[in-house]
């Protein structure tokens, strides 16, 4: 008699769709959750809602035209994506770019990382129910987009790099504006701690949630601040320096906890590091040409070229297979978001649905980067 009663009370797994239109999935990511009550048993990401076949489009574009497509992948670190393609092409051509270009690329790359982290910080707060942070993050990001708009000509999809250098020289106001921003943001960054980092509700919702061990981070290929919060030393800027990163001093932020709060702190500390990198370079931009002379039609020699860079989300790789034509035979992007998403199921198992939102926020997913 008792047995039958238990059977009736036994919970049954059921499925729920989160997304593709859900505010906390940051775009069109569909998660199929199998739940036991409110406890998550399995998370299955379904992607493909924003697939634009960028890799295929690259196969019939010239190398100059490929650059602007990478803007549309990880739009929050578009300059760094552009840089990756340009560095790959320059590697194939064995072209040495001027020192000035390297320094400017590094400064704008770090500004991009800052603006991406600012947006992430705002959105992270909003995902957990604090609309205030969203407005504060965007307030400070606005100053960076102004710098970009003045120098690069666009706020989001900048397309400032071309194979061999930059599209045009920096604007005369660039240095002054950047220095103003650094002094301004150094005062404002502690506000971030006051508003969110030390907030009791925020800490309760992130401390000890979504643990990812170092071994798992390595086996899932999780990179960027997400991987470094688990103790996986994976900063491409440090291990395989490109552009001007071998000239500056900065710390690789490493944490061992591997929970949501560690990932959060990792990014906040990275903002301080980015500020210090820009400070070291902004007064030392060498004089010289802003691009190396290239042919109008770039043809890479036959071969395979791989270039990786560190975007705001992790390791971004460009793998070019060239047959000696003016467009690549095959071009593969290794996007950080895709690998980071693969760890979501592992991290979210046993958590509640509200925790899943926090975990997804700290992964800092950009869906066009995952789908391409």
């Amino acid at each position, binding site marked *: 008699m008792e047995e039958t009663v238990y059977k009736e009370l036994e919970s049954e797994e059921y499925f729920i769709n989160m997304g593709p239109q859900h505010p906390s999935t940051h775009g069109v990511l569909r998660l199929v959750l199998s739940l036991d009550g409110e406890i998550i048993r399995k998370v299955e990401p379904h992607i493909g809602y924003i697939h634009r076949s960028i890799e295929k489009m690259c196969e019939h*574009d010239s190398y*100059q*035209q490929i650059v*602007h*497509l990478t*803007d*549309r992948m990880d739009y929050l670190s578009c300059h760094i994506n552009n840089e990756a393609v340009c560095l790959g092409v320059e590697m194939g051509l064995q072209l040495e770019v001027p020192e000035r270009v390297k320094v400017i690329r590094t400064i704008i790359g770090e500004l991009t990382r800052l603006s991406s982290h600012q947006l992430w910080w705002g959105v992270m707060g909003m995902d957990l129910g604090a609309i*205030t942070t969203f407005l504060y993050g965007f*307030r400070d990001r*606005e100053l960076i987009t*102004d710098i970009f*708009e*003045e*120098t*690069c*000509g*666009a706020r989001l*999809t900048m*397309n400032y790099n071309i194979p061999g250098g930059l*599209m*045009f020289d920096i*604007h005369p106001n660039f240095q002054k504006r950047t220095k103003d921003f650094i002094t301004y943001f150094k005062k404002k960054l502690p*506000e971030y701690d*006051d*508003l*969110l980092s*030390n*907030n*009791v*509700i925020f*800490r309760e919702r992130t401390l000890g949630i979504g643990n990812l061990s170092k071994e798992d981070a390595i086996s899932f290929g999780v990179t960027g601040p997400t991987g470094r919060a688990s103790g996986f030393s994976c900063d491409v800027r440090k291990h395989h320096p490109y552009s001007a990163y071998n000239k500056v001093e900065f710390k690789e932020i490493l944490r061992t906890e591997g929970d949501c709060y560690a990932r959060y702190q990792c990014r906040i500390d990275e903002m301080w590091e980015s500020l210090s990198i820009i400070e070291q370079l902004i007064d030392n931009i060498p004089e010289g040409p802003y691009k190396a002379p290239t042919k109008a039609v770039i043809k890479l020699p036959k071969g395979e070229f791989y270039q990786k860079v560190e975007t705001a989300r992790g390791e971004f790789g460009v793998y070019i297979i060239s047959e000696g034509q003016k467009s690549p035979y095959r071009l593969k992007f290794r996007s950080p978001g895709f690998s980071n998403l693969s760890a979501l199921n592992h991290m979210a198992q046993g958590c509640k649905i509200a925790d899943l939102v926090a975990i997804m926020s700290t992964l800092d997913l950009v869906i066009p980067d995952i789908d391409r």
Partner: protein
Amino acid sequence: MKSIVNYFKEIFFGLKSLVTGLRVTGHYFTHPKEIITQQYPENRETLKMFERFRGEVVLLHNENNEHKCTGCSACEVACPNGTIEIIHKRVDVDGRKVKALDTFVYHLQMCTMCGLCIPACPTDAIVMANTFEHAVFDRSKLTKVLNNPGSKIMDGIK
């Protein structure tokens, strides 16, 4: 005993953190001058874009309705997504048939504002304008002809 102390400590630090956060928002509430919100579209008159801002492509004309485009199609080749379409005509110059620009068709609906056409132009005939309000009621209005009716090429541009 220790757990009770910790319990009250947690409450105290929790409340303190909330007050710290409220102090930041309260500061901006009482100092409205530090808020940088722009009232668009009310500020349309004073809103000025940066000179390098990439809006739509325009073909520059001088006061005599002359442009610099030779119809060489360099921008058409440089464009990644077929936004620019150059239609040629043949004109007589000193008894020779020479290729010249007939219609400069610009499909704004396909343009990604990447700006690759501007450095590609050998005669600096086109620039990116600072306009950004591109919304229209009908899709067909986005296909534009950039050369003015009756315009011709400037003297000395080859």
